């Protein structure tokens, strides 16, 4: 019997698949966003508004991750953009290989932005790099300002936090400053965008944030 030092990163196989995806996205100049939240935070509503607002200027497609049903993909497809559903079965997150397997549905040369809506869950999706440019999470004010402390990994890995349902602030005990302070404690450079996907308040800020990133990626495409 003898001991062998290995020193292998156990997430390496996903990371390798993510790197492969990222190379595709960067080459084709497609900005890819991995959108995450708990169930019911308003990801799909935010997506519907985003697609409506930006589809004239940009060619957009969506990948919808869900444990089952194609309801979300159907909601997005109604707005005239291509939406592909990935049902994960029992898995609580999307991984890079699932994305790779579904990329053949899209002509990346004909896209400016691909939005991947992850499975509703604040834990597992944060662990898996899909090859996206940015991870963004939606936190709704009805969920409570304690979420950053309870789900530190999610708040640590994202580039931006969209604080949704701010039209409901008068009705809930949600401390906006505390939520932002505890999120930034885990992530110093976190961008915070306050919106109500329902009333439309703040959405212009969100669109501007996206536009800046789409343009930056387009400008560096190699194909």
């Amino acid at each position, binding site marked *: 019997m*003898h*001991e062998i030092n290995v020193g292998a*990163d156990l997430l390496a196989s996903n990371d390798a698949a993510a790197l492969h995806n990222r190379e595709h996205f960067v080459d084709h100049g497609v900005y890819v966003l991995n959108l995450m939240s708990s169930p019911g935070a308003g990801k799909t509503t935010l997506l519907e508004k985003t697609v409506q607002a930006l589809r004239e200027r940009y060619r957009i497609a969506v990948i919808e991750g869900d444990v089952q049903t194609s309801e979300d993909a159907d909601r997005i497809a109604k707005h005239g953009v291509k939406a592909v559903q990935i049902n994960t079965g*029992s898995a609580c997150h999307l991984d890079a290989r699932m994305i790779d397997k579904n990329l053949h549905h899209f002509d990346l040369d004909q896209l400016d932005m691909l939005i991947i809506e992850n499975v509703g869950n604040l834990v597992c999706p944060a662990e898996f790099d899909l090859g996206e440019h940015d991870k963004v999470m939606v936190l709704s004010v009805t969920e409570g300002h304690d979420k950053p402390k309870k789900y530190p990994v999610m708040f640590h890995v994202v580039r931006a936090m969209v604080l949704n349902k701010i039209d409901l602030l008068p009705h809930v005990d949600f401390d906006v400053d505390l939520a932002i302070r505890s999120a930034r404690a*885990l992530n110093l450079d976190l961008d915070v965008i306050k919106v109500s996907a329902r009333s439309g308040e703040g959405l212009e800020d969100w669109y501007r944030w996206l536009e800046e990133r789409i343009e930056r990626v387009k400008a560096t495409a190699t194909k």
Partner: protein
Amino acid sequence: MHELSIAVDLIATIEDTARAHQATGVSLAIVEVGALSGVVPDALSFAFEVARKGSLAADCTLEIKEVPLKARCSACQWEGEIEPLNPVCPSCKELSMEVLSGRDMRLVSIEIDEEKDHA
């Protein structure tokens, strides 16, 4: 429940390493799991029991070493271990901790069984 897919990858890595050393079996695997890695040690142990069946690591014991979360305070430069659920600087009480380690999950080493040496 992503511990199962991690356990499957873990078994594959163990088997690759074992084969590269002409092992006939693997008796022990040591992994490090960071406090902020999102991996639950108990769930990983359970998933490993399932994933190892029929593999070179079928009789392998999994030893999990938990790695604490270490961070640095950007306000006062304090460095040390903190609780994942309490990201406040123990020294100056500021909410400005920057994570240094404890996010990873690594296969550190394995112990393999070999054909008896020809003495």
